[in-house]
Structure formats: structure tokens, C-alpha cells
């Protein structure tokens, strides 16, 4: 029997990274994710790894680029404002086809905002984030166990597609403690023939996102686009709850989805047939489950801790077939299940 350990979300992410073979972390402090670098500063040296605190988020992401170009499993983590600073480097990494894992523990924004958990970076995460026509594979865990599992897989996915993968969490997930089962340490890392380093028996390797000839850059863009199509085909992840007979469907991800689940239980107790579709990969977005449930659904309700960003993807999935509403609290205020229940009841009443 695997034993469970009680872990904080942020520390669980850090431990899962080590177990997945990550040996290099470059970062810069920012609340509410400091337990990730702190954990790795303590534990990476014990497994022969390197933790290095950079002078800025910008520098950190370019250290990640260097480490990834050198073939290692590399991670960085930050929170909203810091992730904004990293965007230049993330774009370079996408362009240079270098794998890495980036953790964004979202907080309230814009600007310096507040340090409490929120979900205002959905657009930034799912649309690439920086300049240029690229995508990140973005995974949004809702529980500490899922944070472990997805972080562990994220390194494999990054290597498989030679693309940065983002773990999109929030201050709630990072701070709560839950029992988790940790996976086995991964000791079989893939060979990376394209990486730089000792080069005795091969031609030189160049890792670059610079393609000054337009026809060459177009070819690269098409290649990236085709890879994104593969990701869309293979890596869509989602979960659903009480959707079989649902007449109303809530769309929610991450910590918000757990609040949604509690509200759905309350609504069900009052006889309201409401269910949940929870995207686990927010890019690629699970459009199919939303499309498939349209015939039985009277309305969709996107429940997010922001003014409504994922609602766009729900609308893109179902078109104008059904109304799509939004409910959420802002700035780091945690919405309560009771509030969502009240919103559900109000919308159900209007729909009748």
C-alpha cells in the first residue's frame, strides 16, 4: 500500500517535480508561491540538483532557457506579476522549441493586485501569453493530489512536444494541505539529441528562436501549429460531475471547481439538476464535452474567480446554442458555495 503524506499544494508541486526528474530550478520570490522555491532550495541539493535564485523573473526564465537548451529538466515558478515578466522568455522558449515547466500560482490583479488566490490569468495562459503565435500546454489542478500528478506528467509532456508546459494554480491550491500519494521517482529521462553540451560525435546543435528568413519562419510556424494540433488531439483532459441528467451546466476549473461542486451538491438537495464540466487542460480546451451536452442543457454558467475569461472558450465551444452566464468574485475574494447556489437559483428561475 502506498502511504499518504500530508502536503501543502506548493510543496507537493515541488516534490512532484523532483520525482519527475527535474534537477534545476531558477526563480525569484513572490507571494503566494514562495514555498515552491523554498522547498526546492532545501531538497534539490540532496538529489544532486541545483536551485538558483535569480536577480529577477526575467533572468530566471532565461536561466530556464539555458538549462532546457542544455537538455535538463528545468522548472520555474512564480505568481501573476512575475509570470508577466517571464513572458518574453516563454515566447523565446516556445520559438526555440525548448521544454520546461512553468508554475503560475495566480493572485488577484491587475498590477501589483493582491496576494490572495484568484484566477485572472486564464487568457494570458491559454493564448500563449507573450508575443508571437504560440501556445502553451496548460494544466489546471484542483486538488493537491492532482497538482502532484499533473506536475509529474508535465515534464514528460514538455519533452514529448518540446514545448513549455504551464501548471496553472492559484493561491488556494498552493496553501491548503491535503493527503497525497507520491509517484515513483522517474529515473529514465529521454535523450535529447538536439540539446547543446558536449558534442564529440555529432554535428553542432543550435537552439534558437531566430529565423530571419521569412519563408523559413513560416515553415517553423507551420511546424509549431501542427504540433499544437497534435496536442489538441492527444492531450485534452477534463472531468465531469453529475452531468448525466443535468439541465444546467457549470464550467469551472481549479479551486473554483471545488467550490462549484459543493454548490452543486446543495442545489441537488433542493432538486435542481445541475452538473459540472471541469477542464483540467485549459489549453487545449475540452470543447467536445460542452458540445455533447448542449441538447440537454438549458444554460451554461462559467464560474471563475475573475470577471469571466474561460467563458469565451465555453462560448466558442457551443456557439450561440445556449445562453452562457458568468459568476465569480474578484481580487482574491473567495466565493462561497452559498453564493454560487444563490446565482444558480436566480438563473434557473429566470430560465423558467
Amino acid at each position: 500500500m502506498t502511504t499518504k503524506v500530508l502536503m501543502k499544494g506548493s510543496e507537493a508541486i515541488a516534490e512532484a517535480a523532483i520525482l519527475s526528474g527535474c534537477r534545476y530550478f531558477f526563480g525569484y520570490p513572490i507571494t503566494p508561491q514562495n514555498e515552491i522555491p523554498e522547498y526546492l532550495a532545501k531538497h534539490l541539493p540532496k538529489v544532486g540538483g541545483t536551485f538558483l535564485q535569480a536577480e529577477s523573473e526575467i533572468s530566471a526564465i532565461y536561466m530556464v532557457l539555458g538549462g532546457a537548451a542544455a537538455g535538463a529538466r528545468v522548472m520555474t515558478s512564480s505568481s501573476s506579476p512575475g509570470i508577466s515578466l517571464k513572458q518574453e522568455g516563454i515566447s523565446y522558449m516556445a520559438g526555440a522549441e525548448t521544454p520546461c515547466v512553468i508554475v503560475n500560482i495566480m493572485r488577484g490583479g491587475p498590477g501589483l493586485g493582491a496576494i490572495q488566490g484568484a484566477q485572472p490569468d486564464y487568457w494570458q495562459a491559454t493564448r500563449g501569453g507573450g508575443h508571437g503565435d504560440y501556445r502553451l500546454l496548460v494544466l489546471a489542478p484542483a486538488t493537491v493530489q492532482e497538482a502532484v500528478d499533473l506536475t509529474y506528467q508535465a515534464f514528460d509532456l514538455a519533452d514529448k512536444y518540446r514545448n513549455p508546459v504551464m501548471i496553472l494554480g492559484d493561491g488556494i491550491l498552493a496553501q491548503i494541505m491535503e493527503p497525497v500519494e507520491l509517484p515513483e521517482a522517474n529515473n529514465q529521462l529521454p535523450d535529447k539529441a538536439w540539446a547543446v553540451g558536449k558534442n564529440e560525435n555529432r554535428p553542432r546543435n543550435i537552439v534558437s528562436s531566430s529565423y530571419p528568413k521569412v519563408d523559413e519562419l513560416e515553415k517553423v510556424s507551420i511546424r509549431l501549429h501542427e504540433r499544437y494540433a497534435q496536442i489538441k488531439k492527444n492531450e485534452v483532459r477534463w472531468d465531469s460531475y453529475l452531468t448525466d441528467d443535468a439541465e444546467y451546466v457549470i464550467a469551472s476549473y481549479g479551486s473554483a471547481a471545488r467550490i462549484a461542486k459543493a454548490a452543486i451538491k446543495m442545489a441537488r438537495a433542493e432538486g435542481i439538476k445541475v452538473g459540472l464540466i471541469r477542464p483540467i487542460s485549459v489549453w487545449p480546451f475540452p470543447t467536445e464535452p460542452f458540445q455533447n451536452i448542449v441538447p440537454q442543457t438549458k444554460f451554461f454558467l462559467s464560474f471563475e474567480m475573475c470577471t469571466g475569461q474561460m467563458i469565451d472558450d465555453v462560448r466558442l465551444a457551443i456557439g450561440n446554442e445556449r445562453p452562457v452566464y458568468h459568476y465569480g468574485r474578484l481580487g482574491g475574494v473567495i466565493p462561497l458555495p452559498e453564493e454560487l447556489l444563490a446565482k444558480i437559483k436566480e438563473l434557473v428561475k429566470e430560465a423558467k
Partner: protein
Amino acid sequence: MDKVSSFPKTLVDVPMHYCPGCTHGIIHRLVAEVIEEMEIAFKTVGIASVGCSCFCYDYFNFDVVASAHGRAPATATGVKRVHPECLVFTYQGDGDLAAIGTAEIIHAAVRGEKISVIFVNNGIYGMTGGQMAPTTLPEMKATTSPYGRSTALTGYPIKMTEMLALQDGCVYAERTKISSVATINKTKKAIRKSFELQIAGKGFSVVEILSTCPTNWGMEPLESIKWMEENLETYYPVGLIKDEKEVK
């Protein structure tokens, strides 16, 4: 008859894109020759920056990672931490290193990052078309200082290598120039010393090389060399700034 010189295997035999009279080509060759002579090409990783030299990976015949404007020292850090056995150097211009990349270069020196920095200083932004750099001399004309650099408006030229030499993590800092066979040979020696110190695991080192930009200075190549020695060099004196022996 003995062969006394040949084209280094560490350079790709293609025409370079640099302007006539530009010294990047000479500096590329010096770097390549040192690597060949030290027989370390198999474990060398160059880090390209942004500027005229951003396509140096078209010419260097060894592994190169292209970084963003100013970020080469951070990228070099990542590579070196993963492959401490490799020779890792950045190749940066003054726009890249002395402006947008100030934080990255200073902190690489502060950490004593075991990398070598080839810093080519011609006091102007070359690739973007001759804009004012932090290294541009007072009263010197550039496209964004069309009346000459006003110190009242933009301050004074930055002395990066002196600043880097102040950091305890920096083991060797020297400024050279490319103007004659003698100064080219001196520059090569400085590059070799920097690489040798890195291989010996000593720490951060920087070789600043005063260079010319005939195109953006609006001069003939020979005239630009003269101008460099009479103007740039008076502000940025060549010579040893910090020697390894000073390091405890």
C-alpha cells in the same frame, strides 16, 4: 613548406554579413582560433545575444544557444549549471550588455558564474541602425541623439567593465581594442586567458573589445579606427582592469 596558418575548423566557411570595416569578423575569428588551439570545440557552447552579432551561430562551428536582448548571461548560467564541464561564453555588444542586459551581466559577475564574456563595444547600436547606446560618447551623434549626445538629457557613458571588475565574483577583466596586428594579438591573448581561467574553474571573466562601426559612425574603415583610438579609447582606456592575481 610548413603550413603556418589555416582557416579554423571552429568557423564555418561562409561569407559573413558584417559591414566592410566592422571588426566583428576579426573577433569571431579570434574566438574560434583560441577554441581550436585549446582543443575544446567539442565542449564549447556559445551564447548569442541580440545585435549585429546575433547570427554568430551561422559562423561558429560549435553549439550555440541564441538568447534574447541582454539575457545571454542568464542563458549562459543555465547552460553552465547543467554542463559545468563545458566552456560557455557569451558574445554581446554594448547595446545588449550595457543597457537592457545590465542586471543580467552584473549578477552573473556577482555570482561568480564560471563563464566568459566577450563584450564588443563600439559605442552605438549597430543592427537597429545607429541609435544612441549607454556607451555613446558625449556630443557623439547617433540617430536618436541627432544633435550629439547631451549629458544633460541622457547622462554619461557607462563603464561596464570597471563596474564588473568591482564584483568579487569577477576574476579577470581586461579591455582591448582591434586596430592593428599588435592589438589583435593582444585581444587574442586576453580571450585565451579568459577561457583558460574558466576551464580552470576560477570564475567570471570579461574581455571588453573596443570596436568600430564605420557604417553608423558614417566613416571610412581606416578613419573609424583612428576615431576609435582618438575618442572611444580616451573614455575607455585599454589595459588590464582586474587580474586573476588580485583574486583571493
